């Protein structure tokens, strides 16, 4: 009789003991601007919108994962491509928020602007509960992006030299089409084949679309991919030269860099050679 009475107390005690652990996961927060994201609210959103690809545990092994040619992010491993922080470090909450907002070009990760800012901040908070890294490490310090220098032909030309010197062409190809000699052999941290970015076809980058975004990409690297950080290799002003040159490889995107480059004889010939023109019937295509 006595032991029967004690059962509820044991259960209550067990529940109380378990409370701090469950509560800690639910109370995790994300901070984006003035918004404070709450993991418990983010959890509900995650299990409505995200689990199909990213999986119930956030390990990128959702029911649809096997059918995607670019695997969904593994939040348990917490290795993130798009960061404002140095390679090897955790991204900031803003980085995660921006990734959710922007989506990932040429993948099935869409832009989630349909969600409110608060909802996206809640998702950030929940994503951070999926890996122990967030408990043991702090996010990296965002790199400083110096003001962009004036665009000049010399800047573009110097960027072109760097493109060769740093052997970017080995992966991205001489025309930036993602078809360099090493391209076919590249794999990501999941041992999945990965293709370098094709500048010629794109207008956006994986981690944004501005010159600042491009600057960050090669100064922080895309963790989990063969794209390294060049922060220790080139100076900031050189990085901007590279940005200016890389923009000229986007021959389908009318950027100021491309316009300037085409105004030179050298640039005009290069861009003309790299631009495919014609119609679906083949007329106008010069062999």
């Amino acid at each position: 009789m006595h032991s029967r009475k004690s059962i509820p107390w044991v259960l209550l005690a067990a529940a109380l003991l378990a409370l701090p652990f469950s509560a800690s996961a639910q109370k995790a927060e994300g901070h984006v601007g003035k918004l404070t994201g709450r993991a418990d609210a983010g959890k509900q959103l995650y299990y409505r919108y995200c689990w199909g690809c990213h999986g119930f545990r956030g390990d990128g092994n959702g029911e649809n994962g096997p059918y995607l040619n670019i695997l969904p992010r593994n939040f348990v491993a917490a290795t993130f491509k798009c960061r404002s922080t140095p390679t090897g470090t955790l991204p900031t909450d803003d980085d995660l928020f921006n990734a959710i907002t922007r989506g990932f070009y040429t993948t099935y990760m869409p832009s989630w602007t349909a969600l409110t800012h608060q909802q996206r901040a809640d998702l950030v908070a929940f994503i951070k509960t999926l890996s122990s890294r967030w408990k043991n490490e702090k996010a990296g310090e965002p790199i400083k992006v110096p003001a962009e220098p004036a665009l000049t032909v010399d800047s573009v030309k110097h960027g072109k030299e760097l493109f060769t010197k740093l052997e970017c062409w080995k992966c991205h190809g001489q025309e930036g089409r993602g078809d360099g000699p090493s391209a076919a052999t590249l794999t990501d941290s999941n041992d999945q084949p990965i293709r370098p970015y094709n500048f010629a076809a794109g207008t956006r980058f994986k981690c944004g679309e501005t010159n600042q975004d491009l600057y960050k990409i090669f100064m922080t690297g895309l963790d989990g991919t063969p794209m390294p950080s060049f922060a220790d290799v080139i100076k900031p002003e050189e990085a901007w030269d590279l940005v200016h040159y890389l923009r000229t490889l986007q021959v389908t995107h009318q950027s100021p860099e491309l316009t300037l480059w085409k105004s030179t004889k050298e640039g005009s010939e290069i861009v003309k050679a790299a631009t495919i023109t014609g119609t679906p019937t083949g007329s106008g295509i010069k062999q």
Partner: protein
Amino acid sequence: MLQEVLTLKKHRRAAVAFLAVNSWLFLSLALSPAFASPIPKGNVHAIPAFARKYGMPCSSCHEAWPKLSPFGQQFKDNGYQMGNERDAPIYQHPSYWPVTFRITPNWHRENTNRVAVDGATPGSTVEASITTHGFDWSGLDFHTAGTLAKNISFYVLPSSDNTGAFHFEAVWGRLDNLAGSPWLNIKFGKFELDNLHSEKRIVTLSSVGGSYQNYHFQPLVSPGSASAPGASTEALYTFGIGDNQVGVEWMGHSANDRTRISASLLTSNDGQPGLPTSRGYDGYFAASRAFEAGSLGLQRVGAFAYLGQAPTFPQFTQAGVAVPGTGIGNKSFYRAGGIGMWYIKKFDVTTMFFHGWDSAFLGSNTPGNTPLPAGAQAPTWNGGLVEPHYNLNPQLILIGRYELIRMSRQVFATNPGNFGDIDAATGGFRYYPFISSRAGFAFHTEYSIKRQRGAAPVSGRDLTSGSFFFGFDFAY
């Protein structure tokens, strides 16, 4: 002490609410095999073909399919595109074909309190309450939709009734993001009007609750009587703002879909094929704006207006029968209203206001080349809709709806003031035993009831219909 009382009251309220909800759920589940109800009336949209294409669960695009979430609305407005250069068919496996079917085997019970039947005296007509029930199935929707190329989308929906007789419910192509702008999208064909509260995505399926009363209301003309049973109805035209229409639509939206606007030019035949009525055109306009309200969610308000016309007599006849498409003597009608979609976390409620006006010629069934009957006037009415939902989680949604329609001016001033007024209520739930990116399945249970004033066919008393529906609603 006060605190204790408040706490006690709070707990009591919570307990009562808990018991009420659970009793309702239990009774619905327990009784549904014995009481279920009718037939999906419209052709409702939920397209696992998209889920399969993008590998996303139903719950991404649907708060509870077929009802769209803001993300699903944005996807639709963007031409069934996510916008990451992976939307065109060239990025799909060659065997992928964007096809989905949907059907709902069900049990339903129907009751109407006053139906005209033969009386005991030969030649007489009396009223009787009629109840039917039994196992049944819905029509079949066969959706094909998606992108033909980047920024060219399409939708073809052959749809049948439950005898298997098919018609085309939707047939359209759309040029999306013309000139790279989300503000320039042109749709051409037969399509659903840009109704934020989509009847094609309605979450209730019974014969009474499977459509919105306000979307199809046309005034009654005059009450019936024992000597002339049946209230007379408008006969010169048929129109429902919930019906798919034929024409061209310009639609624009902001990149994040917070602002939406559209205008349509439509053939005046309520979506019927073959130009059967006239050479008239209608117009439909809709606009809405969403705004964020902290942690509550995305709120949206909007307005819409349909300006239409309908022929009242044929220009030519052959053997006394009107030659199709030669209707003239067009007379006008319009429907207008406002909508609010309010979210409080898991709870949301859609509110709508309607106003309708018909020409006196349409209202009194009078051809435009003849004088109006004495006392005939243009009927007007107002309507309202309140539809709350509670998304307990992506697998369970509780649904309620109340609609009312109130005549503000009768076709004939001699009609009773409330003649034709409607009150309709619906309650139910949908439970999705699994959420997947491959298919959809829902246990659907619903009860709906509708009362229309003075519409009983013989006595002119109120006409009430009730419908109970239980079904397996699935799409693949």
